[in-house]
């Protein structure tokens, strides 16, 4: 039923979905039309509902008048009134459907129809001429009821109500006034006052209706403008993504196509320089070679840079052994350092791993070392890695001319070359630190520059170390969870067996226990790992047990527990890839050892099978 009422603005919103947000004034303007349509709609909705109460009222009036008023008059009045009422109901419905006639005209017709009904109903007051005071009172009550009932029908349009109620109550009041006497005059006064109150009530009702209608329109406009705004944002985002894609595609094409002629130039100028040439031609060939090399290096840096900017490069962190990476980067610059006549050193503890993208980290290190070598004319460049408990600090240090503090920010900008520096101008392009800055942002590391003129420069940053055991999530204090895991406990001592089982069950694991190897063999199927005591009551020891168990489960992770402190057992345990624990063992150590055994690198297989091979050979 709201469809008709809000049709104009909705049609508008469908036609032009990007309509700008509606202003308050526009809401009122559109609201005026829509409001009137809605008025008509509500009246049309209510007229049929009032039919039977109205007809009943009219019948009652006719019944009161029947004995006292001439029959022709009563019948005539009843017929005319009924027709007028039904005519109004039908006309009201027609006017809702009629979207051609201006709404103002239809509203005026509504008022006229209301007036017609009011006059017809009110005509019943004329019966009072033939009636006594008691029946007059009854007629007045009925007409009052009809006038009040009209409030419901016409509540959205007080003018229609006024047109309807005024003739009814006005004629009633007139008849009482004609009656005269203090009763007649008092009743006349009361009716007129009541009429005023009714009309005022209708008016305030209409205002409430209008206000709530406008609030609804405003809400709808707000929703529409929010939707439009969201569409706008989505379109902007799509456009940005599209242009990013296009940029990446362009870059791919550029890196491929730009490099081909350059490649040809490189190859041919290289071969040219090897031909037997006159010395001036040789010098030219060498100059061409240098230009081509510089062009190539700039193009590489530029494409690197654009790729980082285009967002096509994302960090793909992995466990990286830092020593290998540092070593290899330094090695690739050894020749360059020798040419410049400077030292190139590095220090890095051997066993450190970090969680990072190795390619991006390599680019950072390479560009920093490259830069340092270019700026340093005597002394040395060094890469130093210092390990803390949780992170590592990497520093690239040079003994170059240094950078004044006010230029520290500037050097990370693209294409910036500070004047008066000992730069090897043949290969400088001022993009290296720009690449460093972008790669560092992708890795979320903060590279700090410490430098004073004449005192060299240090680029320094920290990155977190990788957890020592991958896959083991250890609660800060307490025992890690073993939920969902199943372990075999093999120990001939029932008390010890029970203690291990309790400790592991407390961490959430499922446990099966065995006192002998034979018993253990029956349970190896579904376990994640086994805890085996080295000393067993039967012939053979824990290693025999491991051998037998691995015949069934070749890569079964094992934690072996022993009170023995000699090196022989340790060696044997290492050979078969078992984690060795010395007694006494506490619960959390046992749990961690088991998790370590499960999560350990998949070397158990290699170890055990390699062991078998060497044993056989």
């Amino acid at each position, binding site marked *: 039923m709201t469809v008709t009422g809000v049709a104009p603005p909705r049609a508008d919103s469908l036609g032009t979905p990007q309509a700008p947000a509606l202003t308050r004034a526009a809401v009122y303007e559109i609201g005026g039309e829509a409001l009137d349509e809605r008025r008509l709609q509500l009246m049309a909705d209510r007229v049929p509902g009032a039919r039977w109460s109205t007809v009943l009222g009219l019948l009652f009036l006719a019944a009161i008048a029947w004995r006292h008023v001439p029959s022709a008059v009563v019948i005539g009045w009843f017929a005319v009134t009924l027709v007028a009422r039904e005519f109004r109901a039908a006309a009201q419905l027609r006017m809702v459907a009629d979207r051609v006639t201006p709404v103002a005209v239809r509203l005026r017709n509504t008022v006229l129809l209301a007036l017609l009904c009011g006059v017809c109903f009110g005509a019943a007051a004329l019966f009072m001429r033939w009636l006594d005071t008691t029946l007059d009172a009854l007629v007045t009550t009925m007409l009052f009821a009809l006038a009040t009932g009209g409030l419901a029908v016409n509540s959205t349009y007080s003018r229609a109500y006024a047109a309807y109620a005024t003739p009814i109550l006005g004629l009633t009041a007139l008849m009482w006034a004609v009656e005269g006497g203090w009763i007649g005059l008092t009743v006349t006064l009361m009716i007129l006052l009541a009429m005023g109150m009714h009309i005022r009530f209708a008016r305030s009702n209409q205002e409430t209706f209008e206000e709530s209608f406008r609030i609804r329109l405003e809400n709808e406009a707000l929703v529409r403008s929010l939707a439009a705004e969201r569409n706008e944002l989505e379109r902007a985002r799509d456009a940005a993504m599209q242009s990013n894609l296009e940029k990446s595609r362009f870059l*791919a094409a550029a*890196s*491929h*196509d730009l*490099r*081909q*002629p350059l*490649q*040809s*130039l*490189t*190859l*041919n100028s*290289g*071969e040219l320089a*090897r031909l037997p040439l006159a010395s001036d031609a040789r010098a030219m060939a060498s100059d061409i*070679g240098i230009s081509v*090399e510089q062009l*190539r*290096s700039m193009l*590489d840096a530029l494409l690197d840079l654009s790729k980082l900017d285009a967002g096509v490069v994302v960090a793909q962190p*992995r*466990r*990286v*052994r*830092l020593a*290998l*990476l540092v070593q*290899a*980067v330094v090695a*690739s610059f050894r020749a360059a350092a020798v040419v410049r006549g400077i030292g190139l050193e590095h220090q890095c503890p051997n066993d450190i791993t970090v969680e990072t993208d*190795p*390619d991006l980290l*390599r680019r950072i290190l390479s560009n920093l070392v490259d830069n340092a070598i270019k700026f340093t004319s005597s002394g040395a460049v060094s890469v130093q890695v210092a390990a803390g408990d949780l992170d590592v600090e990497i520093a690239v240090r040079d003994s170059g001319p240094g950078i004044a503090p006010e230029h520290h920010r500037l050097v990370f900008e693209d294409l910036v070359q500070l004047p008066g520096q000992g730069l090897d101008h043949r290969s400088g392009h001022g993009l290296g630190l720009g690449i460093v800055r972008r790669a560092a942002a992708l890795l979320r590391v903060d590279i700090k520059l410490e430098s004073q003129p004449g005192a060299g420069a240090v680029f320094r940053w920290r990155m977190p170390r990788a957890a020592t055991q991958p896959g083991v999530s250890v609660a800060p204090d307490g025992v890690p969870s073993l939920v969902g895991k199943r372990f075999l406990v093999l120990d001939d001592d029932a008390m010890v067996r029970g203690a291990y089982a309790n400790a592991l069950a407390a961490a959430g694991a499922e446990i099966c226990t065995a006192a002998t190897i034979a018993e253990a063999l029956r349970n190896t199927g579904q376990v994640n790992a086994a805890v085996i005591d080295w000393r067993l009551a039967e012939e053979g020891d824990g290693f025999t047990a491991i051998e037998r168990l691995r015949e069934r489960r070749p890569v079964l992770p094992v934690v072996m527990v022993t009170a023995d402190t000699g090196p022989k057992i340790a060696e044997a345990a290492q050979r078969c890839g078992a984690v060795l624990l010395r007694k006494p063992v506490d619960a959390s150590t046992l749990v961690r050892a088991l998790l370590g055994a499960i999560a350990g*690198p998949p*070397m158990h297989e*290699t*170890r055990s*099978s*390699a062991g078998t*091979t060497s044993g056989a050979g």
Partner: protein
Amino acid sequence: MNVLLIDDHEIVWNGTRRLIERVAAEIDPESIFGFEAARDVSGACRLPAHGFDLVLLDYHLPDLSGVAALSAVKAHFETTPVCILSAEGAPQRVREVIEAGAAGFVPKSYRLEEMEAALRVVLRHRVYLPAEFLLVDNATRTEDPDALERDELVRFLKVELSPRQRQVLALAIRGTPVKLIARKLTIAEGTVKVHLSMVYRALGAHNRTDALCRVFEAQAAAALEST
């Protein structure tokens, strides 16, 4: 030595041919040098399948390109090692093509001396991996305690492998499928697999890509040549 270059940019054909010819003459002055170039995979596949010692395939080609081109070229030139040439040498791409059976990856953006060095290795051993790739790949690899040290690895390849095993490994790391190795050496496929699994284990390698990395990194490819 016969080399086939598949590259849609004719502008690089001549330069590449000159460079390869010179390097080939340095390596093996006796051998006659032959060079062909094709613009795309279909053009290359019209050439005889058995005439070449090495195929250099550009990664970007107009119609069939990348790994798909590699598969098509390998299918045609069955036993010839195929090395990828590309201006874009991101580690993921290198791994992708090596795992798809390429014998090597030569980045085009190298400066001349480096490109020359790379080609020298490719022409001599038919395998090549860029230093950046080894660097990144190694930096993430966990140390396998059973893997041989570099020197030991070279000794192992030279001394402990039989000539047959060396042949099998040399063919395998160049991307030759087991079936073709068996056919070429006229031995059973099962025998090839046994040889390979033994050699891989000794190298601490899980697969061909690993084995190629190990051998290449230890500069041990030469050890496989003395068959």
